[in-house]
C-alpha cells in the first residue's frame, strides 16, 4: 500500500477547475515533483495535502489514514513556502524550535534537536540571527530545518527556490535532495522548473489544466513523453505533424518529405501522427547535393548560444527544425548556410494526433542570431 495517496482529488474555484481528478500514489521515502506551468494546479494539490484548503471531492490518505478532514495543525506536514516564511520576531533557532515548543518537548530535547537541524542545513553558526539578518538562501535553509524539526510524515515544498538566484538554487536543491535521502522522508515538491524537477526527484508528475498529464521517473519523462504537452514541456522537442504512408516499413510524410520512423511501424496508412524528435538527436551537416534519406534540406535561420551547445533553427521546404550541436560545430554552420538535417529513425517518439487545440506551451529561448 502506498504511503501517500491522493485519490481522485477535485477542486474548483468558481468556474475554474484547479484540480480535475488527480491520482497520486507515493511510497514512503520517495520524492515526487509536481511540475507544470503557472495555473496548472500543482500548488493547489500541495495545499490540499497540507490542509490549508479542502477538496471538493476525493480523499488524501497518509499511511492508510484518511486525513482529508483533519486540520493543518494536526496533520504533521512540514511545509516550506515559496515566500520567505520565517517568523520575523524570532531568531533562526527560535523559528526551528517553534514546532517543538508547540508539541511540548522539553527544553533539553528542543535545544539538541535544533542544534542538529541547523548543523544539517549548514547554519549551526547562525542560530541567533533574525530572519532579516539572513540571505534568501539561508532563510530557506532555516525554513527547511523548521519543517523537518517536527519530524513530519510528509515534507511539502512549494517552489522553495524560486526567489533565489541561479547559483544558490542549484546548490540548495542538491542539499534538499541530500537531506531528503539522509532522513528518508516522503517529499512532495512543487516547481515549474523542469531542470530542478528532473535533477532531484524519484518521480515527476507533469500537470496541465488540473490534471496529471504523465507521471514517471525523470528518465521516462524525458525519453518517453506520453503526450505532446509533456514532450514539449520537458526539454525541447521538434513536433512534426505527419501522415503514415506505409505502416510496414514505418514511412511517414511531413512537409513533402518521406521519413522512416521505427515507431510508425504497424500504423495504418493515412493515420495522422505526431513525430517527436529531440534537438540533440538531429544531425546537421553542410548540404552538398540532394541530401540523404530521412533528412530535410534547409537554411540556418538563427543560432542561439546555450553554453556547451548551440541551438540552430533550420527552415526549408515547409519544415522547421531545431537542432542542438556542439558550439564548435555550430561555428562551421553559420546563419544563412544550407544544411542537411538528418533525423534518427529509431530515436523519434510517435504520438497519435488528436483533433482539438494544442495547449499553450512555454516560449523557446529568444534566439541570438549571428
Amino acid at each position, binding site marked *: 500500500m502506498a504511503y501517500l495517496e491522493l485519490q481522485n482529488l477535485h477542486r474548483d474555484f468558481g468556474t475554474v477547475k484547479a484540480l480535475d481528478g488527480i491520482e497520486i500514489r507515493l511510497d514512503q521515502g520517495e520524492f515526487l515533483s509536481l511540475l507544470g506551468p503557472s495555473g496548472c494546479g500543482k500548488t493547489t494539490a500541495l495545499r490540499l495535502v497540507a490542509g*490549508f484548503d479542502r477538496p471538493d471531492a476525493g480523499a488524501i490518505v497518509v499511511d492508510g489514514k484518511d486525513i482529508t478532514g483533519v486540520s493543518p*495543525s494536526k*496533520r504533521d506536514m512540514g*511545509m516550506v513556502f515559496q515566500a520567505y516564511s520565517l517568523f*520575523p*520576531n524570532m531568531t533562526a533557532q527560535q523559528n526551528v524550535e517553534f514546532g517543538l515548543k508547540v508539541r511540548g518537548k522539553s527544553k533539553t530535547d528542543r535545544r539538541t534537536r535544533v542544534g542538529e537541524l541547523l548543523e544539517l542545513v549548514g547554519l549551526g553558526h547562525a542560530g541567533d540571527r533574525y530572519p532579516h539578518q539572513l540571505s534568501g538562501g539561508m532563510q530557506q535553509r532555516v525554513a527547511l530545518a523548521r519543517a523537518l524539526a517536527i519530524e513530519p510524515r510528509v515534507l511539502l515544498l512549494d517552489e522553495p527556490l524560486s526567489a533565489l538566484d541561479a547559483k544558490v538554487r542549484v546548490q540548495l536543491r542538491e542539499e534538499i535532495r541530500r537531506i531528503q535521502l539522509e532522513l528518508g522522508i516522503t517529499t512532495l515538491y512543487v516547481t515549474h522548473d523542469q531542470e530542478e524537477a528532473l535533477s532531484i526527484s524519484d518521480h515527476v508528475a507533469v500537470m496541465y489544466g488540473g490534471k496529471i498529464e504523465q507521471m514517471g521517473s525523470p528518465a521516462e519523462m524525458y525519453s518517453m513523453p506520453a503526450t505532446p504537452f509533456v514532450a514539449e514541456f520537458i526539454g525541447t522537442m521538434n513536433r512534426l505533424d505527419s501522415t503514415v504512408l506505409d505502416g510496414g516499413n514505418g514511412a511517414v510524410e511531413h512537409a513533402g518529405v518521406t521519413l522512416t520512423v521505427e515507431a510508425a511501424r504497424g500504423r495504418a496508412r493515412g493515420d495522422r501522427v505526431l513525430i517527436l524528435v529531440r534537438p540533440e538527436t538531429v544531425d546537421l551537416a553542410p548540404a552538398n547535393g540532394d541530401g540523404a534519406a530521412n533528412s530535410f534540406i534547409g537554411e540556418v535561420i538563427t543560432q542561439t548560444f546555450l553554453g556547451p551547445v548551440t541551438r540552430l533553427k533550420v527552415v526549408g521546404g515547409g519544415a522547421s527544425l531545431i537542432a542542438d550541436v556542439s558550439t564548435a560545430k555550430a561555428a562551421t554552420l553559420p546563419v544563412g548556410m544550407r544544411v542537411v538535417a538528418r533525423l534518427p529513425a529509431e530515436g523519434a517518439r510517435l504520438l497519435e494526433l488528436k483533433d482539438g487545440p494544442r495547449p499553450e506551451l512555454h516560449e523557446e529561448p529568444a534566439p541570438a542570431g549571428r
Partner: protein
Amino acid sequence: MRPKRRIALSAAVWLVLGVAYFLIPLLATFLFSLRSIQTGKCCSLAAYHFVLHNGDFWHTLKVSFLLALETIAISLLLFVPSIYLVHLKLPRLRPVIAFFALIPFVVPPIVLVVGLLNIYRGTPSWFYDKPSGFLAAGYVILAFPYMFFSLDAGFRSIDVHTLTEASQSLGARWPTTLFKVILPNIRTAALAGSFLALAIVLGEFTIANLAQFHTFPIFLEYVNETQPYGAAALTGISFAITWAAMLSLLFIGRKRAAGSGSVIAGVR
C-alpha cells in the same frame, strides 16, 4: 574624507519656523504657568503646587487613565482578532470596515453622546452610571478609526497568510498563532493605536461632560475657569504625560527594530 554636509539656508529657515510653530505656544504656556497666583508675576511654582496637591487632579487622572487602559484593552481584544480574520479570510470586508471606521470622524461627539445616552438608557446602573461602563463603550467607538487604521497598516506590513499557514503547519492552533506569531509582528502598530486611544481618552471632553462624568478633561476645564495659571500648569503636565507615552512608543519600537528587524520581514 567625507565632504561636510551642509544644510541649505532655505531648509534651515523652514526648520526653524516649523519648530517655532510648535514650541512658542508651549513655551508661552509654560511661562504663563510660572506666574504667581497672588501677584501674577514670574516666577513661582504655586500653580504646579496647586495642581499636584489637588485631590481632584489625582482622582480624575486615575479615572481617565483607567478608562484609557480599559478602552485600549477592549479595542485590542475586539479589533486585533477581527482585523486578523478580515485580512486572512474576508479581505473583501476590509473596505466596508474602513468605511465604518470613518463614521466616528463624521458624526460629531455631541451627536454621538445623545445617541449613546438614548441607546444605553435602561441598561443596568453598573454600566450606565459608571465611567468604566458607559464612557468606555463610547470611547471604544471614538478610538475605532485610530485603532483600525493602525492595526490595518500593521497587518498589511506582514504576510499574514504565509505566517499563519507556517505556524499551523508546525502544529500551532489559532490562539498560539495569534499571540506568538502574529501579534509580536504587529506590536508597533498595536502600540501606535493604543497610544492614540490613550491620547483621545485623556483629552475627550464632550461625551464625559454631557454624560456627567468627572474625568481629567472635565477637571482641566474646571481649573481653566477658576485658576488660569493652574490651567496652564495642568496643560503642561498633560503634555508631559502624552509625550512620555509617545516616547515610550518610540523607545519600544526602536528596541523592537534593533532586536528583530523590520516588521515587514517575511513579506511575500
